[in-house]
């Protein structure tokens, strides 16, 4: 047994369990919906639900406050990738207005054992991430959207996630008060 001595950190979990669980989820969605577009949408929606929970864990762990500007946001998102997936995407391709940037990564535990069959090329396998970003940011009063512009599963050299700031959201006010 080659695994002797491997002791998993109590706050960590084997990435293969994570990879395969996500894989099982995606393949379940492929069974539950007829077409890739609907699966992509559902993955985004599920990502959103994960994001609104994940942000609480992120804030509790890092003790970070609200972002100063969108560059700050980009760095915090990058830190999130490091914290949760153990990868450090590169922040690049800022738009001139400073409202859009890209995250590029070369490896990623979500896609570790994945190869898309030819009939699934419409599937955005990692679309869950776009939902996670939307959900997490919305909880801290930011409306952002994101999409994949390059995808290694589709033959690109890197995977590139484009993130765009839309607007700041207003703080919630209690019911019955104006």
């Amino acid at each position, binding site marked *: 047994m080659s695994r002797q001595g491997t002791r998993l950190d109590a706050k960590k979990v084997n990435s293969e369990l994570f990879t395969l669980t996500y894989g099982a989820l995606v393949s379940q969605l492929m069974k539950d919906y007829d077409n890739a577009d609907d699966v992509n949408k559902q993955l985004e929606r599920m990502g959103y639900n994960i994001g609104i929970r994940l942000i*609480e864990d992120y804030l509790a762990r890092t003790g970070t406050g609200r972002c100063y500007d969108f560059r700050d946001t980009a760095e915090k998102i990058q830190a999130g990738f490091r914290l949760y997936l153990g990868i450090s995407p590169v922040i690049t391709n800022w738009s001139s207005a400073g409202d859009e940037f890209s995250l590029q990564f070369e490896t990623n535990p979500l896609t570790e054992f994945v190869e898309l069959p030819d009939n699934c090329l419409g599937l955005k396998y990692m679309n869950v991430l776009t939902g996670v970003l939307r959900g997490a940011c919305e909880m801290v009063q930011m409306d952002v959207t994101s999409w994949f512009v390059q995808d290694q599963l589709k033959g690109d050299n890197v995977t590139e996630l484009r993130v765009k700031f839309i607007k700041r959201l207003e703080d*919630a006010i*209690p019911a019955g008060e104006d």
Partner: protein
Amino acid sequence: MTIHNLYIFDKFGCLLYYAEWNRLKSSGITREEEAKLMYGMLFSLKSFVSKISPLDTKKGFVCYKTNKYALHYLETPTGLKFVLNTDVNAQNVRDLLHQIYSKVYVEYVVKNPVVNLRDPIKSELFKVKLDGMIKQFPAVSKAS
């Protein structure tokens, strides 16, 4: 030193959780009314504090004191609100609030697959862990 009671509100002002340990007097109104009153007060006080501040306030409203008790307030960037009433001498209550958030709320509510974040918290495990944390807190060396 004494911890009296705790309120947790979500960002929309819904009372997610209430617990009391040493509450000697009740407000005489229903829990719902009391929660509404509390939330309204916090909301107004928060905006008042930042409006009237002569400096650039970062943390804003964190606490008020009367001659009998102190109210400590923690709001997360996601708008969750934790309110703890203690006696006036209690120390480091802010740390405790943060611990409640990170070690109890995040662990046993956020990561609990059978809980919906918008619903009031009913998890027994959450209650047990919260009680444990409150009782371990140095300030609670038996109500004196």
